[in-house]
């Protein structure tokens, strides 16, 4: 059993363990402004507040809930092509989540639903990773 807050807190903790990543923040996307961060803060992952819904109703006021969120990843690249850094970050994030897909047992699963192309211009680029997370909710404990 879990809850929304624990899942998101665990997601942040897991992402902070990625050695290639300097900063992980939880944000409301409307509030997020990358210009408030310095070069030394990048690569940075911004976890946006997720959309939430019931994935499956179960018996006894229990249900499987689904959280859909987007990771916005910002990174610096001074070279001609940012592809190498982009691919390295995708791999690091996917490997980390794949190795801990229960997010320290707060969730049933956490999976990557999609990865965007590179956006931005030299030297500050960004891309997004769509995440879907599920957790068991026991409403008798709410």
């Amino acid at each position, binding site marked *: 059993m879990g809850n929304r807050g624990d899942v998101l807190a665990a997601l942040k903790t897991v992402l902070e363990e990625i050695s290639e990543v300097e900063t992980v923040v939880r944000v409301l996307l409307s509030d997020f402004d*990358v*210009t*408030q*961060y*310095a*070069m030394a*803060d*990048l690569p940075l992952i911004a976890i946006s507040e997720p959309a939430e819904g019931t994935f499956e109703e179960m018996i006894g006021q229990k249900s499987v809930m689904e959280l859909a969120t987007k990771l916005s990843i910002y990174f*610096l*690249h*001074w*070279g*001609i092509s940012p592809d190498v850094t982009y691919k390295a970050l995708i791999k690091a994030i996917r490997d980390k989540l794949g190795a801990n897909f229960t997010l320290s047992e707060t969730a049933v699963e956490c999976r990557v639903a999609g990865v965007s192309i590179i956006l931005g211009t*030299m*030297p*500050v680029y960004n891309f997004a990773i769509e995440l879907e997370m599920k957790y068991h909710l026991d409403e008798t404990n709410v």
Partner: protein
Amino acid sequence: MSPYYGLGTKENILANLKTVVDTVEGIKFVDYQRIRAAGASVDKYPGAYINDISTDKERLLKDLIRNMLGIQLILWIWAAKDEDLITKQNAFIEDVKDKVVADPTRNSQAYDTIIENITTDSGSRHPQAMAVINMMIIFYSEE
């Protein structure tokens, strides 16, 4: 990660431009922030004045700014009695332009140097002509 190129300062970029324009064959005089050749003696022709005319800044990060530096290179040309003024003017413009674009990174201080347009004074009369090279230099800075 060390910068590949593009992180620089306006002062170093202007100094690089002067160094580069100084190497143009036959150039006699290079200075900053001047408009007219009035008062310059004939031995200072051909000359070039490097004028920075605008800087647009876009903040990318707390400590990283993209700068769009507008530069006007004002060129003064003098033709001897038996020389064709326009031919000499065009040759001088070509020499200056070639030197400027040979290293668009301004010795790794800029991301790019873009020559936007070149105008000549259609009213030039022998022995003096002028031309203006407008360029945009893009560089990044921490302030």
